[in-house]
């Protein structure tokens, strides 16, 4: 019985370690936005001052000049994975900037859930909800 319990404990630990596997590449821009890509079938190429991330046929391009750095995570750090065609979101000079289509429903929240405006945003982390989908961004 003791042996079985020890074995079960070891199995739980092993699965726990496996659960921490870093399966995403997260790209952080200098504006503070983050986009995550699953490592499954991900390919990066570097040319003409750009990083091109190709994942399952879809392509996302970043300018070297706009990149802060890339790092690996266990989970996608943005609530949405940008590889499925989401919007770009950033806060520049305290003002929200996005390529969301005209007429989109846009709300900005602080991390504690308080809704705020789209301008005069102080430094900090904000959650931007566009047409029901949420993005995380940073005002610097």
């Amino acid at each position, binding site marked *: 019985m003791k042996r079985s319990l020890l*074995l079960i404990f*070891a199995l739980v630990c092993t699965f726990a370690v496996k659960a921490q596997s*870093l399966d995403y590449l997260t790209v952080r821009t200098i504006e503070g936005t983050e986009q995550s890509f699953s490592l499954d079938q991900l390919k990066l190429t570097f040319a003409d001052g750009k990083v091109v991330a190709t994942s399952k046929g879809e392509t996302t391009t970043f300018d*070297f000049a706009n990149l802060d750095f890339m790092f690996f995570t266990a989970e996608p750090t943005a609530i949405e994975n940008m590889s499925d065609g989401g919007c770009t979101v950033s806060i520049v000079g305290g003002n929200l900037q996005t390529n969301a289509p005209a007429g989109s429903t846009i709300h900005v929240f602080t991390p504690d859930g308080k809704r705020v405006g789209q301008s005069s945003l102080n430094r900090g982390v904000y959650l931007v909800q566009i047409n029901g989908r949420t993005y995380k961004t940073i005002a610097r």
Partner: protein
Amino acid sequence: MKKIITLLSFAAISSAALAQTARIHCGAFTYTAPVSEVSRITTSADGTAVTFDTNAFSAAEIDSVTFEYRTYDAHTIYVNYSATQVDITMPLALREQFTSSADGAHVYLEADPAYQEELTYYLSGTSQNGSFTMEGDYKSTVILDNVSLTSNKGAAFDIQNGKRIKIHMIEGSVNNFSDAKGGTHDACFFVNGHPELSGNGTLNITGNTKHAYASDEYSHFEASFGRLNVLGAVSDGMHIEQYLKTQGGTYNIKGTGGDGIDVSITKDPLDEYNGQALIEGGHFTLDVAAEDVKGLKCDSAMTISAGTIEATVSGNGSKGISTGTNLLIAQKTGVPTKVKMVVTGTTYMPGDAELEAKCRGIKVKGNFTFDGGVIDIVATGAKSKEISVDGYYYYKSGSINCYVDSAN
């Protein structure tokens, strides 16, 4: 309950053994790094550089970065040949420790002398125009896994590393090496250090410039060694400095312009077993067809304590076995020792005061002691002899069917 736990254990162990690995593709080279060991990837604002932690690349040299759910050993470099190209997979952590190049399928890997950890080089694939050259200052291992290299420039397998080199053949593998004609290299398959060979595979070597196989220090063929076939050589089939030790294996040597196996004494008098051949196992088949050469030769003493040596000595003036000093043929308990020869050659350059050489089955320049085993030599060539001993012949035990011409 027990079965469920066993199944879960197996699944857990299998999944825990793998990890996501980044693969940085740069021409013939792919550098691997577990993603868990890469804290960040940065790019230069001007678009010219990409850095993985402290490993900097020019953006232009990276073809792509891909990811694989696989764990790579941190001390193994994979070299896989394919026609005129090669894929070299190396841990990213080793990149700065190496001077490396791939000219088509001609590979050069030089580890920094300051790097003092054992590395394994895993060779596979086929190239009709390729080679493998390795240099370093620490003992290493080379694994041969169905690798076939024909070199059109220099040696096919060239280990410049002067340390202990383990060469292991994967079970059942067939590995072929052939070099270029008219080169300046010593051998098709060359080891500067001391090779220790193992593994039940087959090694086929052809030496088109000089020797087929050569080592600048002792060669040790372990009991697990499979098969070595010398298909031809301009000079010796095997040319070994210091000593040869065999504990198993099968050796077929033919088509040599020089000796089948030549063990030479080194210049350092402190080298152990200097100039000796120590046959403790193995089956040798030697076709001694060239003139005035030897099937198995050593500059110093030879000890045959197990195994079989069969030689066909047809070259005029040639010898099946030739020793610089003493010869001992004995049999360890339960392990048969057999020496069988057919000697049909005659005299080489008869009448020439300098060059005349008589044909012999065994030629011993020192003393010959026979203590167990079977000696079966038939010499029919004109003026040939089965066994010729410059010193004394001591018989203690064993079966012998021929005359021993000695001083006593």
